C-alpha cells in the first residue's frame, strides 16, 4: 500500500475574473521511503498540488475535490485540527526560498523548538537537545552556540539546512520539498541535494520533490510526474522518463537541460509560454506549443494512458506510439552524445 495515494485531485480558485483551475485532475502515489519528483514549468500546478495536500491553500474561494489518502486517511476530508496534527509531524514541507521562509524575529532555536513542542509536550531543554541534534545532522557547525542566532545571521545554504532540520525534526513519514535548491547557488544546490538523499536514507522518509529542473530529478527521484498546465502529461519511473520519454513536453524539458559541452548545439527551450489556467487551450493543452500538433490535438483532450509494455509508465498524447518511440530514441542519442562529449 502506498504511503500517499492522490486520486483525481482538483484545486480551483475562484477569482474576480473567473475560476482558475490550478490543479485539474492529478493522480499519483508515493511509496514509503521513495522519492517522487513532480516536474513542470512555473505555474503548472505542482506547488498547488502539494499545498492542497497539506491543506495550506487559503481556505476562502478554493474548491478542492478528489482524494489524498495518507496512512489510510483522506487528508482532504480531515478536519482542520486533525490535519494540523499531521502537518509537521507526519508530513513536513520545505520551501523554495530559505531567505524568507524563516521568521526573522525569532531565533532559529526557538523556531526549531516550536516545531518539536507543537507535536509533543516536552520541555524546553529536551526540545533544545533535539534541535541541536538535528542541526548537527544537517551539518551546521557549533550547533549549540548557534541556537540563539537569528536567521539573518546564516547564509542561504545554512538557512535551507535549518529548514531541513526543522522539517525532519519530528521524523515525518513524508517530506515535501518545494524547489528546495532553486534559490541556492550551484555548489550549495549539490550539497543540499546530497544532504537530502543522505537524510532520506537515515530517516527513511518518503520525499515529494517539486522542481522544474530535470537535472535535480536525475540525481534523486525514483518516480517522476510531469505536469503541464495543471494536468499530468506523463508519469513513470525515473528510467521511463529519462530513457523512454513519450510526451513532446517531456522531450522539450529534456532538450532544454543545459549540457556541459555540446558544441554546435544550442539550448533548445520550449517555445511559447505556459497557458493561462483561467482559459486553458482546448483539447490537448500543450498543442499550441507542440511541434507535433495534429488536427485532433486542439479538439480532443488526451487522457493519461498506459504505455504498452512499460508498467507504471503512462502518457497523455495523441501521437502514434511508433512516432513517440522514434522521437524518444532520437532525442536520447543526442543527449548521450552531449553527455559523452
Amino acid at each position, binding site marked *: 500500500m502506498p504511503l500517499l495515494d492522490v486520486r483525481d485531485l482538483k484545486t480551483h480558485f475562484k477569482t474576480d475574473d473567473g475560476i482558475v483551475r490550478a490543479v485539474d485532475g492529478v493522480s499519483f502515489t508515493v511509496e514509503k521511503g521513495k522519492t517522487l519528483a513532480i516536474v513542470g514549468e512555473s505555474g503548472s500546478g505542482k506547488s498547488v498540488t502539494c499545498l492542497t495536500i497539506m491543506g*495550506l491553500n487559503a481556505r476562502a474561494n478554493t474548491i478542492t475535490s478528489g482524494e489524498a489518502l495518507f496512512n489510510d486517511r483522506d487528508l482532504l476530508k480531515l478536519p482542520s*485540527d486533525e490535519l494540523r496534527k499531521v502537518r509537521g509531524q507526519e508530513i*513536513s514541507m520545505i*520551501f523554495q526560498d530559505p531567505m*524568507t521562509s524563516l521568521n526573522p*524575529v*525569532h531565533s532559529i532555536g526557538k523556531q526549531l523548538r516550536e516545531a518539536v513542542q*507543537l507535536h509533543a509536550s516536552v520541555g524546553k531543554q529536551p526540545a533544545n537537545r533535539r534541535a541541536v541534534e538535528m542541526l548537527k545532522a544537517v551539518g551546521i557547525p557549533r550547533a549549540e552556540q548557534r541556537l540563539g542566532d*537569528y536567521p*539573518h545571521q546564516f547564509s542561504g545554504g545554512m538557512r535551507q539546512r535549518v529548514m531541513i532540520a526543522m522539517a525532519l525534526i519530528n521524523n515525518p513519514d513524508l517530506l515535501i520539498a518545494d524547489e528546495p535548491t532553486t534559490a541556492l547557488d550551484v555548489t550549495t544546490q549539490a550539497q543540499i541535494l546530497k544532504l537530502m538523499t543522505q537524510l532520506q536514507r537515515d530517516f527513511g522518509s518518503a520525499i515529494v520533490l517539486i522542481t522544474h529542473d530535470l537535472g535535480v530529478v536525475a540525481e534523486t527521484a525514483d518516480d517522476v510526474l510531469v505536469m503541464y498546465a495543471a494536468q499530468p502529461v506523463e508519469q513513470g519511473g525515473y528510467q521511463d522518463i529519462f530513457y523512454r520519454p513519450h510526451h513532446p513536453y517531456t522531450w522539450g524539458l529534456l532538450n532544454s537541460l543545459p549540457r556541459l559541452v555540446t558544441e554546435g548545439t544550442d539550448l533548445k527551450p520550449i517555445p511559447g509560454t505556459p497557458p493561462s489556467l483561467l482559459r486553458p487551450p482546448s483539447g490537448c493543452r500543450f498543442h499550441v506549443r507542440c511541434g507535433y500538433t495534429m488536427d485532433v490535438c486542439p479538439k480532443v483532450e488526451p487522457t493519461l494512458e498506459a504505455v504498452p509494455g512499460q508498467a507504471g509508465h503512462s502518457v497523455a498524447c495523441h501521437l502514434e506510439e511508433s512516432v513517440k518511440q522514434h522521437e524518444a530514441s532520437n532525442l536520447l542519442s543526442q543527449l548521450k552524445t552531449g553527455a559523452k562529449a
Partner: protein
Amino acid sequence: MFRYVIRRVLWAIVLMLAVTLITYVMFFAIPVDAARLVAGKSATPAEVKIVAHRLYLDRPIYAQYGHFLYNLVVNHSLGYSYNDRQSVNTTVFAAAPVTASLVFGGALLWMVIAIPVGVLSALRPRSALDRTAMVGVLTGISAHPVWLGYMASFLIGYKLGWLPIQGYCSFSGQNGGAFCGGPADWFTHMVLPWSVFAILYAAFYVRMIRGNVMETMNEDYVRTARAKGAPESLVMRRHVLRNAMLPVVTMLGMDIAIALGGSVLIEVVFGLPGLGAVAVQSVEQFDLPKVMGVVVFAAAIVVIFNLLVDILYAWIDPRIRLA
C-alpha cells in the same frame, strides 16, 4: 547595541540644539520689544532698560541663547514667562499631565480599537466587518478634529447628557472646586477627548494594521509555521502579529511623541489646559520663554520617544541590533 544607543543620544542632543536655536531665531525675527511687554506700556525708557537687562534682552542674540542654554543645562530652568511671570517649568509641568492624560489614554483606546478591527479586517478581507471598518477609516481620516469634537460635545455631552461637554478635571481633583472630585471626574471628562482622539488615529491604525497583517500573512515564514502544524491562533500571535506590528510600533512612538508636544485642536475644543493650549496662548502673547519651554519639552519628548522606539525596535527586531 551600546554604541548604537550612544550614537542615538548624541544625535538627539544635536537635534535639541537645532530646534531651540531655530525657535530662538524665529522669535527674534518678530519685532516685539519683550522688555516693554514685561515692563508695561507705562514704563519709562529707564525702567524698560532695567527689565531688558534683567531678562538678558540687552545682550546680542547669541549671548541670550547661550544664557538660555546655560540656565537650561545648569539650573534646569526654562526661565520665566514674560506674561504671567511664572516659572516656565511650573507651567510646562502643570500642562504636561493633561496632555499625557489625553495622549496615552487616547493611544490606548485607539490601539484597543485598531488592533482587533485591523486584524479581523485582514483575516476576512471584503467581509461586512472589513467594509464597515474601511468606511469608518475613511470617515475618521476625513473628519476634522474640531468638527468631531464639537459633534461629540453636542450629541453626547449636551443632547444626551451622558458625559461632560468639555473641561478638564485633574486626577487629584485638587483646586477643582465643584467641578472636580478626583479620578472618577477625571475619567468622565477625558472620555470624549479620548474618543475623538482615538477615532482620528484609529482610522490610520486600522488601515496600517490591516495592510501589514495581510502582507505578513503572505510571508513565506507564515506558511512555514503552518506547515509545522502551528494552530491558526499561534500563527497569528507568534508569527504574523509580531512582524506586522514592527512598523506600527514606530508609528505609534512617533505619533505619541508628536501628540505629547501638544494636541492643539482637541485641547482647545475640549478646554483641556495642556501643552497645546499653552503653546497657542504663549505664541499669541509673544511669550518667548513659554514658547521655548513647550518647544524644548516637546522636542525632548520626541527625541526621547524616538530613542525608546529605536531601542524597542532593536529589541523586537533582531535584524536591527547588528546594523
